[in-house]
């Protein structure tokens, strides 16, 4: 089973099972529309979720956190509108058939983590270079102040899927881009995904994919030199693919580390 999940030898794969006791504060954030397959003309609620193992808590709209909240279709980019404090955090109207890309980019949130929790979180998210940097700086035993920003995307399909439809680059600081329309991928087929940081491919980063039918069975792959990974979409249903990138924070702020959390969701209909 494990061998089948690893598409080729230069990707390192691991399956993380039993995440129920994962670190307290390193939570994923993703977009979960009220439907992934709307009709043309339908109003779609855009729910933001924060959690782990695809178990999410609602994140109501908070304009002080929103840097960008938009969707792109064949006609261009439009804002996802909504009222502060409400869940779903926003709404959009499907104007035409095709693949719709929803994006949410947040301002940074601050968090302080104890040394053990922070080290555990770095390990879980595959941020080995930051762990090494902390060790060099003799900080492994110190608490960490982090500013984290979200870069979430979701792919919604109105009408029939075609190969011409595709994910779009939204210009997020850290961005996952599906290089094929996932809705056209046959059962068990591979989805190539590219991770970019400041619009350049990010190599060696850990990208994790999970499916709602069994979110504990995660597939984690490191990006190659072009920032690419390929996930075998062995199950139907909702998928969440995510990656975290961390850098030392620019001097002058309260935080020592800045992290970016990219995610992309889509929902393959049952066959």
């Amino acid at each position, binding site marked *: 089973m494990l061998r089948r999940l690893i598409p080729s030898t230069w990707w390192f794969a691991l399956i993380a099972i039993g995440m*129920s006791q994962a670190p*307290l*504060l390193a*939570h994923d*954030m993703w977009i979960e529309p*009220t439907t992934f397959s709307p009709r043309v003309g339908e109003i779609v*609620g855009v729910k933001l979720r*924060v*959690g*782990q*193992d695809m*178990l*999410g*808590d*609602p*994140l*109501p709209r*908070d304009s*002080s*956190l929103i840097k960008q909240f938009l969707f792109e279709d064949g006609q261009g980019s439009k804002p996802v509108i909504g009222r*502060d*404090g*409400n*869940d*779903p955090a926003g709404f959009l109207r499907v104007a035409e058939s095709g693949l719709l890309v929803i994006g949410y980019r*947040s*301002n*940074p*949130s*601050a*968090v302080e983590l104890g040394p053990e929790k922070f080290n555990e979180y770095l390990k879980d998210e595959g941020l080995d270079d930051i762990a090494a940097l902390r060790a060099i700086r003799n900080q492994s035993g110190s608490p960490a102040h982090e*500013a984290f920003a979200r870069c979430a995307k979701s792919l919604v399909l109105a009408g029939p899927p075609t190969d011409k439809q595709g994910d779009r680059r939204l210009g997020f600081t850290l961005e996952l881009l599906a290089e094929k329309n996932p809705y056209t991928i046959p059962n068990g087929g591979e989805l190539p995904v590219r991770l970019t940081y400041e619009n350049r491919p990010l190599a060696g980063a850990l990208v994790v994919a999970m499916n*709602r*039918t069994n979110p504990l069975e995660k597939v984690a792959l490191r990006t190659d030199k072009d920032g690419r990974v390929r996930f075998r979409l062995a199950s139907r249903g909702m998928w969440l693919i995510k990656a975290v990138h961390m850098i030392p924070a620019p001097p002058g702020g*309260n*935080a020592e580390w800045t992290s970016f959390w990219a995610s992309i969701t889509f929902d393959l209909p049952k066959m």
Partner: protein
Amino acid sequence: MLANQFSMAHRLQWVYLKLFIALLACTTSAAAHEIGTTRVSVLFQERQSYDIEIVTDASALIDKLKAMSGQSSSANPAPDSMQNLLQDFDDKFRQRVKVTFDGVEVHPGIAYSVTPGSGNNSAPVATIRLTGQIPPGAQNFTWTYAWTFASYGMTVRKAASENPSTQWLEGGQRSTPFILAARAPAVGRLSVARRYFSLGFTHIVPLGLDHMLFVLGIFLLSGRVRSVLLQVSAFTVAHSITLGLTMYGLVTVSPRIVEPLIAISIAYIAIENIFLSELRSWRVALVFAFGLMHGMGFAGALKELGLPRSEFLTALLTFNIGVEAGQLAVIGAGFLLVGWYCANRPWYRSRVVVPASMMIACTAVYWTVVRLGL
């Protein structure tokens, strides 16, 4: 119904608005927090009792409870079914909620309710109420809630009329201790002993009808003093053992198991009275075994009342003595009412023991059914 929904929606929106205003007021850096829809309000009444209300997204909570129990997430049911589901998950829910006074965890009573969302896209809202007594002399309160991944606001009031103080917490984070009284009066050992003796007594008479019927069942077997003494002694030793072990955290059995077993034990004793007229050794052994269960039941009640940290042992012992006094009062009343006059009469069994035991058995069977949720 519509009016209720509107008022709920209005209330929630108002709460969010207030949360955001409070957040803006207390945020000093440019970085904000990711605030979810969960909120927690704590009210202390007269330094006697606490009332904690958690308002949260019902579907998100149920999904997590199911996942923690190894169940797969299915489509969200109607609010009524959600309420029943939450009640079924009570044991699981308690595992990630901690109410402590002076560092000692208490065991609150929990009531769950779920109301529909306010609009087409709004999710049902779960309101969970945790209530209990503040242990006498408690000076501070801490709170942990690990069923949310987002940040949430906890408001605390020492009286209904007081302005609340707010703490922002991450899911799973323990609150900083909330001071209940700047200078709490010292608790005297005697006043603790008096209070817990009275709590133990009233837990039997008049509040513990099930324990009263069990003791009456013991009394009814035979009018002989030796029979009553042997059984009561076995029962007392047994329930004292499990009461102590449970309170010190050495034994933990869910009330879902203990409470139906207590009802079964009463039914058994009463039914046996119909067929047995003399004390047998196995009966004493059985009463001992049943006593172990009743002890866990007493511990459940005592946890809800809470124990003062400084006088833990005094409170535990005097509660137990209060329970004994309650039992003796029941036996004494039985003896005065029927035993004194007619225990040795030839018709005692047919006219008193059998009909009374049958009534006790019927009541206990009914409790068993109810407690098993059949």
